[in-house]
């Protein structure tokens, strides 16, 4: 069995930075540099780039064959570093001179990055494999003309639960059921957890309506006494697997790993609606090797490469040409491959602009209660 922790904490807090302390974390936000130091020259995207590519990715988010395959095909040496939250990634790019050529931000972060001018437009003539992308993953609201980003992998956020103990569930109501007091855990992420409350109330995950947000806050305050805590998705999975909790709020790839290992567990995309998230490849404005970056993006969009990725991470592929090559054990799972009627009730998290701080305040208020 593969042992890996895909998408370590899409949740926004940086446990990994932990011990650094407050001063340390502040400093690293201001001053972090990647541990690779790209040598000078070869900028500007001409044909004379050195054979080097600096990839900044979520950890364990490529298959074992992905990078060696690219290096073999192109002779370009790949250096991969990892980030643990979209906010980390943004802070690093905003501090300038990140030195990365390809980054993998999620949906709402792509639009924030576009608005903050930290990405460069893609030259689509250099990415012929874009034809493989499913129409479902083009022209998404965060990048309506596909100018800056290409979908990498996608997944959903739902509930991993112990069906043998809980019985069949199908909606967010289960996460508010007093019967399971102390056996529920949510994701420590404003948008996902406030989002779950908004979905349950029948609102949009991108609501900026004050009354709706206040209702969602009340719902989260009502839910808090039932919770074991707010954790990263990768932490909720083992809590459910070990029987510490019965219901965990998790990302699909984490959940599917657990479901394949233990048939008592089930992953559902709750009613009425749930989140579909998409991680994307993009090129930072100051990238040193934009030519190589385009080659890498094009390589990822090859049918076989895309299929290998998903077969390893258990997350969905936006690549239509990859679909026939996916493992059967995955494609048979409705949670991996949601039918159209389920897909239609999935919503993509968008940037909420000024309201972001209101979201943050509400979440602080709930956690602090």
């Amino acid at each position, binding site marked *: 069995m593969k042992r890996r922790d895909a998408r370590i904490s899409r949740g926004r*807090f940086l446990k*990994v930075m*932990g011990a650094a302390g407050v001063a340390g974390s502040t400093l690293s*936000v201001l001053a972090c540099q990647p541990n690779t130091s790209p040598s000078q020259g070869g900028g500007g995207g001409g044909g004379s780039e050195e054979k080097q590519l600096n990839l900044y990715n979520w950890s364990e988010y490529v298959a074992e064959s992905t990078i060696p395959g690219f290096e073999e095909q192109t002779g370009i040496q790949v250096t991969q570093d990892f980030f643990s939250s979209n906010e980390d990634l943004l802070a690093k790019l*905003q501090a300038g001179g990140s030195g990365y050529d390809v980054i993998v931000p999620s949906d709402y972060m792509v639009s924030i990055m576009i608005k903050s001018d930290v990405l460069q437009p893609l030259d689509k003539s250099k990415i012929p494999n874009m034809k493989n992308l499913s129409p479902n993953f083009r022209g998404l609201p965060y990048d309506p003309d596909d100018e800056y980003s290409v979908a990498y992998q996608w997944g959903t956020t739902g509930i991993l639960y112990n069906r043998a103990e809980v019985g069949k569930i199908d909606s967010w109501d289960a996460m508010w059921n007093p019967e399971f007091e102390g056996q529920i855990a949510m994701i420590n992420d404003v948008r996902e957890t406030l989002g779950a409350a908004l979905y349950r109330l029948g609102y949009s995950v991108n609501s900026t309506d004050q009354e709706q947000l206040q209702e969602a806050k009340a719902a989260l305050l009502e839910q808090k006494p039932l919770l074991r805590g707010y954790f990263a998705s990768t932490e909720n999975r083992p809590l459910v697997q*070990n029987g510490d909790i019965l219901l965990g709020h998790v990302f699909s790839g984490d959940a599917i790993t657990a479901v394949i290992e233990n048939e008592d567990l089930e992953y559902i995309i709750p009613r009425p609606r749930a989140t579909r998230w998409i991680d994307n490849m993009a090129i930072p404005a100051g990238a040193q090797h934009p030519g190589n970056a385009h080659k890498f993006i094009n390589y990822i969009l090859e049918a076989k490469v895309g299929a290998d990725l998903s077969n390893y991470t258990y997350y969905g592929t936006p690549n239509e040409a990859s679909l026939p090559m996916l493992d059967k054990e995955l494609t048979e799972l409705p949670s991996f491959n949601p039918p159209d009627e389920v897909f239609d009730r999935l919503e993509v998290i968008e940037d909420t*602009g000024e309201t972001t701080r209101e979201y943050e305040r509400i979440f602080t*208020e709930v956690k*602090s209660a």
Partner: protein
Amino acid sequence: MGRSKGRGWSLGLAGLLGPVAFWLGLFFFVPLLMILAYSFGTSGVYGGITLGFNPTNYLKVFDPLYLEIVVRTLFIATLNTLLCLALGYPLAYFIALKGGSWKHALILLVMIPFWTSLLLRAYAWVVILGGNGLANRTLQFLGITDEPLTLIFTPQAVTMGMVYSYLPFMILPLYAALEKFDVRLKEAAQDLGASRWQTFWRVTFPLSMPGVIAGSILVFIPSAGEFVIPNLLGGSRTVMMGNLIQQQFLNARDWAFGSALSVMLAVLLLGAILFYIRRVGAEKLEGV
């Protein structure tokens, strides 16, 4: 002769202090000034900051929500300091005065946890206290409980984790202070008719005051800035100032407010320490 010798010495001193002054200036003082400047700025919606004079960031700290977090943080840090003192003092006393030839080995044991990162040690507690963890299995094996107990992700687990993490910072300065203690003073006090209790409170404890003060400061400051343990062992159900500052910088993209909170935290800590030294320490220190 004497003059030139003096100059040579001060050049040598400059040579020795120069690197550290440069280091602290660049990586401590300059960032501190940046935080101060940021705290009066205005945050952009997408992060970044416009400098200026905008005191509203500080007014926001007095929002009841944030004020509550400030008060809670100071409470947790104080509680942690008192618990560390209560647990650390007897141990330091024992090692320093009764340790004999085991002294060095015992103090080494106190320091061993430093060889592993705090993060790993906190994760170890998650494993030990979990529903299926070592603690619960042992309790069930001994028949003390049938059902696994909820040991982790509670406020008690946070307190336990903080005491565990910071206890050595209390023990080491206490040990240093008590080790220098002249046992003959104790004998003298007893010869003069003091009870053991009186001897401790009127002789031993006052003489160990520098250690108490140093230990308390070393525990209090990092406790007030703590943000890992409430997340790891508390399930993020408790928000401390450290968590709040981190959220402001990253999630809320409000660097100005985050900076204002950081400045407030620094001012509060400085104030608390000055108050503490004046009230508790000064005359005791003078007595040494």
